[in-house]
């Protein structure tokens, strides 16, 4: 039999000024099951809590109703007090008679009546409360980082430095991501590889990091604390542990004019067996079978094999599938760039000297195809005049994407500066619509491109580029002077828009995390939970979430790492017990519930008899994934699933108590 105690709080005059608290207590005492009902000046004060605890002890209370302030204020206070007296914390219910009564109504009699109603509701609810145990989920204290760009590297290093084992999976032959392709970086113009190379080496050497390059995630299952991962390690056709990175193989390979170098953004060629760039980590070549004569011409060529001292090239090696278990995942798969060839009017792909920002980055770079001397692709001459066009593909709902890519204003200013530094008496023109330079020191950086390095900025878009006698005639506008502008340039650089990594949506579906219509992963909440994905235990970092620059990518990598370390700081992961629960006796396995669950928390469970034969299948809630939202409950026609703390019968009891 329920023994309920009701405690009506005055909150000084906050409640007592508008609500007749004594009357509320008196009416409450008449409700069947209520064994004591008192009012008190400040329930949350120490004396208040002590009197509550005393009453639990003396009256052997099985449930408490506090008619007081909002549960968002003191629910936990009173639950803690109840726990101290050995009561299950979920046997405490709050009737909100301050925020939702005394502060919003004036008529004392009517306010008192409302307070009584709310108290009755909670008494009926608490009568049907059942003990709820918080669920403890075991934690595999190992983390998976997907993507080895700057964001993933930062996340991996911070996590590993926190003492946690990290598995870093990178799709390409080397880690480094886009940043290692860059020359110098805004806003400080420090050399990208000077920052990046030591970090890459650190990853390689870190005792807590296991690195899988040239590898992809094949499958993911499980939930927070308990993910099972299948990694496909594509074969390099090289015995990795024996390879010394000496380079004899790629120097021997005859196929050196056939494949465009991905690392150099198609501006140079690589061999069939290759490392993407000299500082690659790991420094082990990949044999690209699609380009290799050995595979094309039925084993005719094996020059690399012959050249290799340790004989570590093996044409027969196969892809491997590796299984790992982890407790948390950080997705940092970065970005791609839009395809400029959508812009027929800019002649990308037709005019050799119209290049993308990333290609220009490679032209600037000492490790690039021109060894850092800016030479235009058509004739190798050093350009004197370059026109930069911003927002190509970005802010263009017609041909591209409507959003702003955030980094291109800044990298264009950087390009204009570096061009001025490298080529004397050169001139750059920048067509822009708005300049977005909102970071620390960014506006100053852009100004210096104009003031110190002489870049001329024109406010307007370019309509068309024509080729005329070896010059590119750029036809644009300057809306500030209200004029059409034609500039004869030696080269044009397009600040191409940023889009999510190809296939990021596929990975997102595998991970069960949400993504926006472009394919960027969405955070659980942009302000409250900016590093969490929609699925517990999976965190996000870097450009995979949306356009951001290196400083922000690093910050988000560190933030994700700290979330993982925070999660792993406890021995087990505790989930509030207010989650869904299936009545296996009545469930008919229609799985309507599964369809509405946004958290993929519902799976099928086979019920077997003693002999191990499957008797039936029922819905099963994964406590690591369920958030207790209750969407499944209203989807279930057979009333076989319910959310603890908000059970159907409790809500009906509340409604019933209001009967007039």
């Amino acid at each position, binding site marked *: 039999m329920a023994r309920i105690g009701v405690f009506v709080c005055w909150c000084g005059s906050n409640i007592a000024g508008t609500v007749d608290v004594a009357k509320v207590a008196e009416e409450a005492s008449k409700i069947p099951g209520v064994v004591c009902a008192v009012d008190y000046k400040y329930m949350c004060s120490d004396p208040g809590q002590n009197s509550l605890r005393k009453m639990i002890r003396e009256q052997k209370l099985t449930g408490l109703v506090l008619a007081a302030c909002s549960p968002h204020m003191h629910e936990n206070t009173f639950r803690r007090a109840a726990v101290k007296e050995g009561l299950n914390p979920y046997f405490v219910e709050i009737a909100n008679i301050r925020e939702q009564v005394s502060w919003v109504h004036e008529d004392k009699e009517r306010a008192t009546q409302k307070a009584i109603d709310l108290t009755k509701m909670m008494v009926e609810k608490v009568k049907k409360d059942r003990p709820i145990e918080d669920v403890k989920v075991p934690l595999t204290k190992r983390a998976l980082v997907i993507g080895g760009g700057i964001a993933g590297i930062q996340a991996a290093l911070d996590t590993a430095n926190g003492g946690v084992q990290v598995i870093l999976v990178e799709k390409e032959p080397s880690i480094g991501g886009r940043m290692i392709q860059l020359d110098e970086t805004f806003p400080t113009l420090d050399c990208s590889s000077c920052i990046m190379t030591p970090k890459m080496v650190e990853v390689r050497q870190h005792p807590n990091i296991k690195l899988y390059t040239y590898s992809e995630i094949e499958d993911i299952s499980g939930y927070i604390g308990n993910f099972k991962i299948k990694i496909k390690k594509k074969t390099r056709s090289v015995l990795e542990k024996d390879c010394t990175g000496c380079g004899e193989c790629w120097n021997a390979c005859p196929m050196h004019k056939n494949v465009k170098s991905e690392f150099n953004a198609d501006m140079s060629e690589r061999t069939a067996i290759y490392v993407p760039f000299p500082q690659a980590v790991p420094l082990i070549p990949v044999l690209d079978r699609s380009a290799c004569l050995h595979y094309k011409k039925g084993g005719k060529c094996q020059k690399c094999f012959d050249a290799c001292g340790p004989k570590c090239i093996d044409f027969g090696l196969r892809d491997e599938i590796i299984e790992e278990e982890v407790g948390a995942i950080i997705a940092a798969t970065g970005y791609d760039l839009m395809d400029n060839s959508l812009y027929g009017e800019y002649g990308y792909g037709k005019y050799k000297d119209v290049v993308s920002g990333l290609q220009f980055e490679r032209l600037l770079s000492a490790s690039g195809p021109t060894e850092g001397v800016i030479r235009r692709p058509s004739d190798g001459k050093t350009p004197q005049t370059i026109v930069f066009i911003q927002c190509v593909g970005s802010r263009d709902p*017609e041909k591209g994407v409507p959003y702003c890519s955030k980094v291109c204003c800044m990298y264009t200013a950087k390009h204009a500066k570096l061009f001025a530094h490298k080529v004397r008496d050169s001139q750059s023109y920048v067509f822009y619509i708005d300049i977005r330079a909102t970071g620390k020191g960014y506006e100053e950086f852009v100004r210096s491109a104009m003031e110190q390095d002489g870049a001329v900025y024109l406010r307007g*878009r*370019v*309509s068309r580029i024509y080729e005329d006698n070896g010059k590119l005639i750029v036809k644009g*506008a*300057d*809306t500030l002077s*209200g004029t059409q502008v034609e500039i004869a340039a030696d080269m044009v650089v397009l600040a191409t828009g940023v889009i999510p990594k190809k296939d990021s949506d596929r990975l997102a579906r595998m991970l069960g995390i949400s993504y926006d219509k472009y394919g960027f992963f969405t955070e659980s909440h942009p302000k409250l939970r900016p590093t969490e994905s929609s699925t517990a235990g999976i965190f996000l970092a870097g450009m995979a979430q949306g356009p951001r620059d290196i400083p922000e990518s690093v910050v988000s990598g560190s933030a994700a790492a700290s979330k993982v370390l925070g999660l792993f700081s406890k021995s087990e992961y505790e989930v509030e017990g207010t989650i869904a629960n299936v009545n296996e006796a009545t469930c008919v396995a229609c799985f309507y519930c599964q369809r509405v669950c946004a958290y993929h928390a519902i799976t099928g469970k086979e019920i077997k008899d003693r002999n191990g034969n499957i008797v039936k299948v029922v819905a099963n809630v994964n406590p690591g994934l369920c958030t207790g939202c209750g969407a499944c409950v209203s989807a279930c026609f057979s009333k076989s699933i319910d959310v603890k703390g908000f059970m159907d019968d409790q809500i009906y009891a509340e409604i019933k108590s209001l009967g007039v």
Partner: protein
Amino acid sequence: MKTTINEHERRDFVSGVESMLHDKLSNCYQCGKCSAGCPVNFEMDYTPNQIIKMTELGMADTVLNSKTIWLCVSCITCSTRCPKGFEVTGIMDVLREIAVKKGINSKAEREVQLFHKIFLENIKSNGRISEFELVRKYNLKTKHLFKDMFLAPKMLEKGKLKIHGVKISNLNRIAKIFKDFE
């Protein structure tokens, strides 16, 4: 230049233009790509993007009396390349239509306006264009009697100018269309 905004007049003008355009002026974000590619921008008094902004500000007199709207040759370069899919060519049509309805006679581009007028009259009376009649009337009205004179004989010789144009048989149909829509 200075513009004092009269909110009532501004709204009237904007909503009038927008309802004919089936597009919202705020859709244009003033990137200037339309003006950048306009082949006749060099002759215009205001660039196409300025026309759009001035329309949004309610500067009816300025835009309706501009040279720009009459110089536009409807080449659709602007609309084709507009990143926002804004109907730039369309707004030129709309402004011309409003100007004509209001009886505004372009001073600077009187001839273009006149040409359009004569062209339509020509259709109205023949159902088709008689190029000879078109040129003759136009030259008479503009008092450019000797304009293109050196072209005419050769064109006549080559058979390019047919003195007797054709009329369509159901001219009453055309009259009806003009009655209903003019």
